[in-house]
């Protein structure tokens, strides 16, 4: 790095808000230097919102942390320059750096609950920013309250007196944004600011950021794995792969007409434009991200690219300037024609016969928890049917009862008296320890986090073999044969059999978990956010696998996800839950197309879309109410944008069939629920 005086920069014209030049960052891990960013260059213009996308491990967060100079202890900037408003950040001394952080750059990141100090009141934490500017305490508190009002916190003075844990996730993130914007920074870095929040809350936070961007003259660096969020929020996008910027361009043209095979692949992995499993498989990106620090000759993406040839593997492509946009691909003009990695050939759709007896049926399924002397009504009177070979998607915000329902079905928790669960027409005992081995075998689960579901000290062979022995009671001599049949069915190479889970990637672990769940030839598999922790390319492969297994084995799924695009892709029917009540139940297409329950409508309108079309958002007031004291009448009336009047407060509406097989729990007539304007259909889904 050439030494540069702090204020010596691009002084000729007004400098970019952020300019990164040839940035090399490496982490030292067990004595080895692992390069994470390789000669990264990009600029964020004044007032611009620049998005950085890429899958986990590509170096997104390292960029953010390098800019604020908060790299982990073992991380080091080895070369390059970072100019913030023309000032060379890397040349700043401690005092100047502090001053810069206090005046020019702020950052908001994932998990606001952890970003706020748990033992300081919210007011004190926000006021601290103003105190640092030399304001007296009283004035700082006034300014803090004003700032909280600007991030649309309804009652700032009461929120100021609370501790972070007393606020909802959305409120916490508003507070974090208020603190970040309090200094009116030149650059605001947002690192996955809405990841982990509910879709409705995410939409609110994104609305807020978009609005504040107009109010404050701030430039934004927006980092996310979620392409749709980037599409909604950013003017320009950079696609990061293995620490390299592989493509850059205006958001619209880059997403509509990608010119790098990686971007092409990422976009194809998403279940977009209402794509469903019977339309064919999702495309995938084969292979894995090269490990950090890998020595790569030629193109970093060559290993996974269908276009790659000897030239790609030998000569590293430069960032070709394509006029206002750039691609690091020798064959950028051919990128959109990238052959599919996974053939589409739609699996022969299973004919689900809803005349026959459902494989699973619940009647008045309810669960009340006792918590601190209160009764918490987690789930009330859920009556559902699930037929052989179909997928029932469960959607709803956190706290809606999705996971409780799954656990009740599995018998992991016991349903309240009066609840009925039937398997193949026979009553299923509520608790798992009173179910017969065959009944236990019939209902299996795949969790969100395969790490916690798989015993770390056992090999893959042992994990699946044990499930075969326990669930399928396969005698030892035939076990290996069956084991291999299963691992091949989940497309797990034989060489992984001797490996322990920690040596596997997230996607491979989820395959092991799926093989384990299928070992006993279950009738029903509950999938609880099975792809939420996975990158989009891996998610696509898992969704394909689930669809294939369903087509060949006629298994039924209860599929829980907060990602509506995924739910739409895999589900035949969808159940919408709110505060433990079934608000809507119907065929997937009809639930998405409408007429909708007002809550479903709000959920759908919250999903950002990749084509950048902004549908009119339906905003829900406030947070999901407490299940200890659910609202009277219709539980949704406190937040409903289409509340009729006192009838909603007094009477719980029945679940009425709006059309054949499509029921909605609302006092509004079905024909009035279909709005005049085009229904806010998420044409495309987020990448999460």
């Amino acid at each position, binding site marked *: 790095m050439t030494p540069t005086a702090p204020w010596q920069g691009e002084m000729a014209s007004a400098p970019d808000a952020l300019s990164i030049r040839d940035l090399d960052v490496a982490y030292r891990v067990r004595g080895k230097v692992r390069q994470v960013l390789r000669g990264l260059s990009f600029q964020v213009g004044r007032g611009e919102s620049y998005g950085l996308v890429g899958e986990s491990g590509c170096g997104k967060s390292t960029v953010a942390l390098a800019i*604020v100079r*908060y790299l982990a*202890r073992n991380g080091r900037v080895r070369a390059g320059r970072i100019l913030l408003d023309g000032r060379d950040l890397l040349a700043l001394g401690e005092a100047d750096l*502090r*001053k*810069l*952080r*206090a*005046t020019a*750059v*702020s*950052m908001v*990141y994932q*998990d606001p609950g*952890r*970003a*706020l*100090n*748990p*033992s*300081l009141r919210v007011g004190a934490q926000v006021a*601290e*920013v103003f105190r*640092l500017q030399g304001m007296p305490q009283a004035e700082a508190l006034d300014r803090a309250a004003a700032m909280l009002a600007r991030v649309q916190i309804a009652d700032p003075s009461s929120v100021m007196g609370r*501790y972070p*844990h*007393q*606020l*909802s996730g959305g409120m916490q993130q508003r507070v*974090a944004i208020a*603190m970040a914007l309090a200094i009116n920074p030149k650059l605001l870095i947002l690192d996955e600011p809405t990841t982990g929040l509910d879709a409705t809350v995410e939409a609110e936070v994104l609305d807020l950021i978009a609005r504040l961007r107009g109010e404050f003259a701030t430039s934004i660096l927006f980092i996310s794995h979620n392409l749709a969020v980037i599409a909604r929020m950013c003017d320009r996008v950079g696609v990061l792969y293995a620490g390299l910027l592989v493509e850059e361009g205006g958001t619209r043209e880059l997403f509509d007409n990608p010119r790098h095979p990686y971007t092409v692949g990422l976009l194809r992995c998403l279940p977009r434009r209402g794509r469903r499993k019977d339309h064919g498989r999702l495309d995938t990106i084969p292979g894995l991200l090269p490990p950090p620090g890998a020595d790569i000759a030629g193109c970093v993406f060559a290993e996974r690219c269908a276009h790659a040839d000897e030239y790609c593997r030998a000569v590293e492509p430069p960032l070709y300037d394509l006029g206002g946009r750039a691609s690091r691909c020798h064959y950028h003009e051919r990128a959109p024609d990238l052959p599919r990695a996974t053939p589409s050939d739609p699996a022969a759709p299973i004919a689900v016969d809803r005349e026959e007896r459902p494989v699973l049926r619940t009647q008045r399924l309810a669960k009340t928890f006792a918590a*601190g002397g209160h009764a918490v009504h987690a789930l009330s009177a859920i009556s559902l049917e699930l037929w052989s070979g179909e997928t029932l998607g469960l959607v709803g915000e956190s706290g809606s009862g999705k996971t409780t329902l799954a656990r009740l079905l599995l018998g992991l928790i016991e349903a309240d008296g009066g609840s009925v669960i039937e398997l193949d027409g026979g009553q299923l005992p509520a608790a798992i320890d009173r179910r017969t081995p065959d009944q236990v075998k019939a209902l299996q689960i795949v969790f969100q986090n395969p790490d916690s579901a798989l015993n770390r000290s056992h090999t893959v062979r042992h994990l699946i073999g044990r499930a075969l022995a326990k669930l399928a009671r396969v005698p030892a001599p035939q076990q290996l044969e069956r084991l291999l049949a299963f691992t091949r069915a989940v497309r797990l190479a034989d060489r992984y059999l001797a490996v322990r889970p920690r040596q596997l990637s997230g996607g491979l672990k989820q395959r092991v978990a799926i093989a384990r769940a299928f070992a006993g030839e279950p009738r029903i598999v509950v999938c609880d956010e099975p792809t939420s922790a996975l990158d989009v390319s891996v998610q696509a492969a898992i969704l394909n696998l689930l669809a294939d297994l369903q087509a060949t084995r006629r298994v039924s799924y209860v599929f829980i996800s907060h990602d509506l695009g995924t739910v739409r892709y895999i589900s035949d029917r969808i159940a919408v839950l709110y505060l433990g009540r079934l608000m809507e139940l119907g065929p997937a297409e009809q639930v998405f197309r409408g007429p909708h329950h007002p809550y479903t409508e709000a959920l759908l309108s919250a999903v950002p879309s990749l084509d950048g079309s902004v549908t009119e958002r339906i905003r829900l007031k406030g947070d999901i109410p*407490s299940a200890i004291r659910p609202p009277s009448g219709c539980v949704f009336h406190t937040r409903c944008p289409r509340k009729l009047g006192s009838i909603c407060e007094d009477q719980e509406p029945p679940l009425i069939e709006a059309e054949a097989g499509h029921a909605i729990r609302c006092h509004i007539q079905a024909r009035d629920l279909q709005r005049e304007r085009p229904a806010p259909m998420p044409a495309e889904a987020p990448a999460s």
Partner: protein
Amino acid sequence: MSTLRAIPRRLLLSLITLWILSVIVFIGAQLLPGDVGRAILGPLADPRAVANLNHELGVDRPLLVQYWSWISHFATGDMGMSYTMRAPIAPFIATALGNSLKLAAVAFVLVVPLAIFGGVIAALNVGRPLDRIITVLGLSATVVPEFVSGIVLILIFGVWLRVLPINANWPPDAGPLTQVYYLLLPSLPLFLVLFGYIARMARAGTVEALDADYTRTAVLKGLPPRTVLWRHVLRNALLPTITVIATQVGYLIGGLVVVEVLFHYQGIGSLIYVAARSKDFPTLEAGVLTVGIIYTVATLAADVLTSMLNPRVRLGAAA
């Protein structure tokens, strides 16, 4: 779940613990070999006199009756009569407890600030030589028993350097400062035992807090390092340490037998020790049970203190 709401339950559990302790102590005392009257009157006394004395003391009654009579009196503050001193036990216990508290207080005042300071310094230099030195020294000191460290300290400070008195008993009419001076050497072994323990907790808490997202938030606000450390890091880092410290109060008062005996100090530990040697069962039982009560109360107080300091526990989750 609020811990505060669980206090009545904890209180009940503490009472049960103490009751079990009283039974164990009582039975244990019965199991010690030897006849009480014989032990008091000596091997040459007339068997009839021994029997008379046993009757007088009530030790010839059924065990259950003896236990009930002892525990019901104890509950009202009547600890009974000492066999050897032929006087009510309560005043002895009170005096001894007062002395033990003084010793514990001196040790406490020395160890707590220094151990926290050491732990925080280690955390701020995590992985560097200073961290290793503090951690390793603290750990080594913790595993050395008090009678070993005590003797070494007596040799160094009392015999070779002659800077500290090796007998903890201060002269009559000594002022508070003189008393502290006499208690310095006895409190050092306790210091060594506790230092490593508390420092480790402080270090672990600080390391965790330094890595926390909220600390990053504070640094990125541009706050000066001192503000980050005091307002953001330590406030969260030391909560678990405070719990550990409060729990150690029980040890400091109850675990002083070795140190008190070693330094000839008239605390509750040496009272128990002397009572055990002279088969003075009522004093032994009263002493052990008193220590048990103090231990239990200290632990309970530690829990309540932690709940009060932690807003997440104190205020519960969002409504």
